[in-house]
């Protein structure tokens, strides 16, 4: 049983969002970097739980990024990955990243590829689907539960206003979200072990990105809150109805 978990480096959820170079680059000044929460809390932790049930399972991590992604890769190893592969390239666009991951996945012959449902920076929700297509594998997105018996996966995924249960034979690509597992904190033993776990660096395969970012911007600031007295709730309802036309 070989599991590949895709790990992306993202700014911390409290990071101040600003741009430089005439609004074409994210301002990384003072930004704390973390493992994308969906990749860490749900995809990686669920993979670790599967390994806890089946000790023959092996968890590989893949990251597409420069050397400054290594601290977050080490953290993922400390949580419980067995070894990591870093594709030494900037993440130009989702197709470029997905193509690199697909190449790693092809060579490693994995039974299961896990991603988070999206990254909290680009919010593309694209990597899982693209990797699945490039590998010609089935894809179950937005999974909230994942169980395995032998080579059959039983998965629950979110649909609008409900959920759907499905079954699929491995190999499969799955994107994970809340419900799949609970966040863990690496322990000292894990942190020590992570220092000597293999972290392979491979060069990217040649792929032309399909898109590029031409600029960033910030949403316009709100005009300011209009406060209504708690003794006059009817006035709020009137404002919402007549002024804001909200219903």
């Amino acid at each position, binding site marked *: 049983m070989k599991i590949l978990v895709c790990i992306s480096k993202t700014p911390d959820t409290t990071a101040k969002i600003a741009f430089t170079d005439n609004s074409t680059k994210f301002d990384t000044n003072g930004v704390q970097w973390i493992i994308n929460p969906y990749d860490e809390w749900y995809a990686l932790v669920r993979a670790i739980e599967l390994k806890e049930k089946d000790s023959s399972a092996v968890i590989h991590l893949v990251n597409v990024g420069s050397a400054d992604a290594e601290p977050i890769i080490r953290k993922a190893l400390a949580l419980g990955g067995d070894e990591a592969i870093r594709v030494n390239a900037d993440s130009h666009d989702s197709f470029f990243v997905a193509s690199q991951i697909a190449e790693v996945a092809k060579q490693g012959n994995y039974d299961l590829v896990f991603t988070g449902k999206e990254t909290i920076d680009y919010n593309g929700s694209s990597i899982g689907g693209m990797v699945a297509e490039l590998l010609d594998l089935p894809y179950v997105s937005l999974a909230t539960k994942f169980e395995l018996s032998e080579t059959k996966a039983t998965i629950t995924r979110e649909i609008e206003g409900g959920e759907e249960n499905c079954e699929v034979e491995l190999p499969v690509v799955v994107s994970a979200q809340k419900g799949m597992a609970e966040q863990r904190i690496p322990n000292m033993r894990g942190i020590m072990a992570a220092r000597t776990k293999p972290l392979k660096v491979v060069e990217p395969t040649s792929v032309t990105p*399909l898109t*590029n970012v031409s600029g960033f911007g910030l949403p316009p600031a709100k005009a300011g809150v209009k406060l209504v007295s708690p003794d006059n709730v009817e006035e709020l309802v009137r404002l919402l109805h007549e002024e804001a036309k909200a219903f």
Partner: protein
Amino acid sequence: MSVLIFIDTNEGHVKKASLEVMSYGAKLADQLGTVAEGVALGTVTEDLSALGKYGVKKIHHVNNDVLNHFDAQVYTKVIAQVAEKTGAAVVIFSNNVDGKAIAPRLSARLKAGLVSGAVALPDTANGFTVKKNVFSGKAFANITINTAIKVIALSPNAYQVKTGGGSAEVVPFTTNVEPGKIKVTNVTKASGEVPLTEAEIVVSAGRGMKGPENWGMIEDLAHALHAALACSRPVADAHWRPHNEHVGQTGIAIAPNLYIAIGISGAIQHLAGVNRSKVIVVINKDPEAPFFKAADYGIVGDAFEVVPKFTEAVKKLKGS
């Protein structure tokens, strides 16, 4: 050349998100001097030709039973065939549950650049650039697509539904559809409730409600407004409310017309998931709650007193 729109259905009914995508696609087709066409998969119980009023001229209907269960791999193959046959220059999805699964697959299959979570019409004056939300709604990016075929997944509630045109020509599209590898065993739906991502109005509550036993008044207000229910992360983590109601950076991102936040302080992670709401109302007894800075209307007061009055006032207004 055409603009091809994926018409997403649920148990044979066209989803509201698809009406937005058709309106958006029709406008884009105008902008590009071409026509908007649709593709619908599986059994559709509605009259597809009536969708012409949203601006689509022709709908390719692949009416094959295999397509009555969603499988992104199977759907992608069929949509790719329709796109190739119709010479689609742009293929548009809603960035909803299904769109998030199919659009990236189609992008990889056709080597067509993708912008997911688009919030505005493309700027086609010089190239093809689409605005999308990034950093969970804290910023936006303009993404330029550099390929001949483009794929767009439009954020729900980002584009107003527009009606006008006449009826659409419905043409059967026949192709050999191989069953997929995913077997759907069960579908559960919370009956009668508005799906959170499609809701026009959302009533959301947080730790200020003190415990799950106090949610009755929140449900009453939601009911009076025909709103969907949501909650903050601590509430979902404490299992006061189900995870699928959690909105925010690590939950669901929503953009309703009206978002009412009750007893939620407004941490940056929560704001990220809701700040695209058109109107935000905050009810909190702490005047220093950061949420007031992001709100349009606010009441500094005790939710336990304000919310029942709110519900009564709504009922009174709607009754009159």
